[in-house]
């Protein structure tokens, strides 16, 4: 009798995942969970309703909506803003091409960006900074993204070409943004004028791209048998990890300036970038070292057995496995770095947060609107941090971290 019932149960086709079933399975599956649901559901409901009411009726978003360009590029001269636009378009185009070539996660990211551009391009509001030119530019980026996709899908375009493109873009962007002194077409723009999201991205992207190779080198250095290399790596890592980022920022921003002669002064933004990079490199190094230790000795022995030299063993056998093993930790480190860049405010760099503070303090009326401004900035940070963690999870799945050895 009982065994018959059990077989019937097994044979029954799976139920469609109805709402009621989902609620029963997830919210009321035991008396304790039912109690928790009954207590917390009203709390969550009222909180959400109140936040929505506040956001749409009480909150005054003037301090956010009035200054889109300030949040985007800071004080970058408005006549030269097209240079930022070209840099962004180049990235959008390459993103499209990568989507066409590799698909997968890049597809979701591309579509998300495309939708964001399209939404802003046709946003039905009257705004003097969202004029026809700006709308055309945003719409143009959507087309550029799709064009990139089509080009990326062509047989003639190989992955290598796109990688080369990504390699050129940072140099192109920096060249475009800084310009040349005395040039008619590209007059120099002092980095003190760079700001907003532009600086946040530059510091994060620069920090990530530069810190990772340094981190790998330090991790290898720390495992090296050469005493000088080992000691240098160890001291560097432990010194940087032993002090907070604020200290390192002050160190680079103030102490370095006191040490170096006036003629060889390093640009303020570069100083901040150096601080962020070294800080992140020390942590990446320890992450990578963890990965190196996870690679079984047999792998190295096998590599040697097939006749690989030390460098080949490291580059083709050890590092790929090591980095794959610690990918989640490394991405976590990059997300932390992205958020940590807000600290550059304390050395006088107007990143997104700094611009927000400047706006709040520029008009006495806006002092009352700080909640809205900070909330907006928090949401921007959340969106990009979440995109990064989403990307990392997809990448882990693709590489088979945690499923394959």
């Amino acid at each position, binding site marked *: 009798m009982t065994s018959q019932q059990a077989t019937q149960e097994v044979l029954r086709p799976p139920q469609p995942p109805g709402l009621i079933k989902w609620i029963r399975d997830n919210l009321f599956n035991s008396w304790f969970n039912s109690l928790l649901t009954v207590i917390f559901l009203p709390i969550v409901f009222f909180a959400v309703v109140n936040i929505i009411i506040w956001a749409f009726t009480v909150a005054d978003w003037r301090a956010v909506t009035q200054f889109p360009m300030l949040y985007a590029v*800071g004080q970058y*001269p408005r006549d030269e803003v097209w240079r930022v636009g070209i840099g962004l378009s180049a990235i959008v185009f390459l993103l499209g091409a990568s989507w066409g070539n590799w698909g997968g996660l890049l597809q979701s990211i591309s579509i998300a960006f495309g939708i964001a551009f399209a939404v802003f391009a046709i946003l039905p509001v009257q705004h003097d900074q969202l004029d026809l030119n700006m709308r055309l530019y945003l719409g143009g980026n959507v087309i550029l993204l799709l064009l990139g996709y089509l080009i990326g899908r062509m047989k003639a375009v190989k992955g290598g070409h796109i990688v080369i493109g990504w390699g050129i873009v940072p140099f192109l962007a920096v060249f475009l943004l800084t310009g040349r002194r005395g040039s008619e077409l590209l007059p120099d723009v002092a980095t003190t004028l760079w700001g907003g999201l532009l600086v946040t991205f530059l510091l994060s992207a620069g920090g990530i791209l530069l810190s990772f190779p340094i981190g790998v080198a330090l991790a290898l250095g720390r495992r090296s048998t050469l005493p000088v290399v080992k000691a240098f790596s160890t001291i560097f890592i432990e010194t940087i990890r032993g002090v907070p980022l604020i200290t390192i920022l002050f160190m680079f921003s*103030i102490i370095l300036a006191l040490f170096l002669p006036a003629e060889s002064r390093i640009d303020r933004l570069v100083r901040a970038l150096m601080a962020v990079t070294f800080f992140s490199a020390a942590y990446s190094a320890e992450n990578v070292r963890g990965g190196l230790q996870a690679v079984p000795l047999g792998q190295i022995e096998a590599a040697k057995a097939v006749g690989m030299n030390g460098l080949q063993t490291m580059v083709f056998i050890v590092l790929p496995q090591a980095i794959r093993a610690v990918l989640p930790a490394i991405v976590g480190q990059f997300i932390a770095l992205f958020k940590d860049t807000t600290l550059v405010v304390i050395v006088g760099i107007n990143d997104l947060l700094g611009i927000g503070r400047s706006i709040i303090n520029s008009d*006495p009326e806006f002092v*009352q609107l700080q909640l809205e401004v900070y909330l907006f900035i928090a949401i921007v940070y959340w969106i990009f941090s979440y995109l990064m963690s989403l990307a990392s999870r997809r990448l882990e799945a693709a590489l088979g971290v945690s499923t394959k050895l």
Partner: protein
Amino acid sequence: MSRKLSTGVSILIILAFVFSMVPAAVAQEAGGGEIIDRVLERGKVVCGGRTDLAGFGMLDEAGNNMGFDIDLCRAVAAAVLGDPTAIEVVPLTAADRGPALQTAEVDLLSRNVTWTSSRDSQWGNFTTIMFYDGQGFMIREDSGITSTDEFDGATVCVTSGTTTEQNLADFFRQNGMEYEAVIFEETPAVYSAYEEGRCDITTSDKSQLASVRSGFAEPDAHIILDITISKEPLTPAVPHGDDTWFDTVKLVMWALINAEELGVTMDNVEEMKGSENINVLRLLGQEGDWGYTDLGLAPEALANAIAAVGNYGEVYDRYMGPEGLAFTLPRGPNNLWTNGGLIYAPPIK
């Protein structure tokens, strides 16, 4: 053994590397540097300023720097380079403004800096007091408090770690009164808390109190008491080691003040060049030498500065006057000495 030895050697190498940078720092101080030459060669005056203080250094919608401190910088650029837009504003925080001046990273520090003896000896040369500020108190009008004698037991909102907090403590101790401090890191948080009624009193420099009050929903419901408990003479400063530059900046500041005394404004500066008044003619470089030969400037350098930003009163009113862009603060001590204020400058002749 040998491993320990080599570790020791590598530490020594690293230390040697670090200390090899020190002579560079010393050499820089000894060399000084002709700042004015650098300014002329660069074609731009680099000013230490800020972007986050209403009235003094703020941003407009297009991201341009503006404010009282920024206009002083523009005046210097107009005098030296003939172009008030030839400035670069480096946003500085309270922590790095001193080192930025010490290392001559900025040619001119015009960032709401209080002139004190230790800063004068350590940071650079302070030119001329351009704004007399002082710490004051703001209370609600309906609080019933009329003077500081009734402050005993009050709750005070204040920013942490500033001289403001120190002055507050000193004031209450000297008067034998108790208070409870509600401390915040961020300035806007202080005033939000005050407006929400979390404290009876808030304290800061009077210019800031006036600025914040103008942003309140009901500005008239709050009063700033007459008492001033600290001296905050805000003064533009230049790095040590270049007397010509020091004199140049000082003279531009004097010129703005003298221009107000003499009734020379942004608009009438051209016609005033034909004035009957000998002092006006001297100021505008039409008569005699106000020092331009020695400083290597054009005779009309000061006239250019006035044409660019206006006289002292015009600069003040642009941001803090009755129709000011930022807020309204009565001139008070920042009136000319002839009007009962403290603003006074040596004659231009």
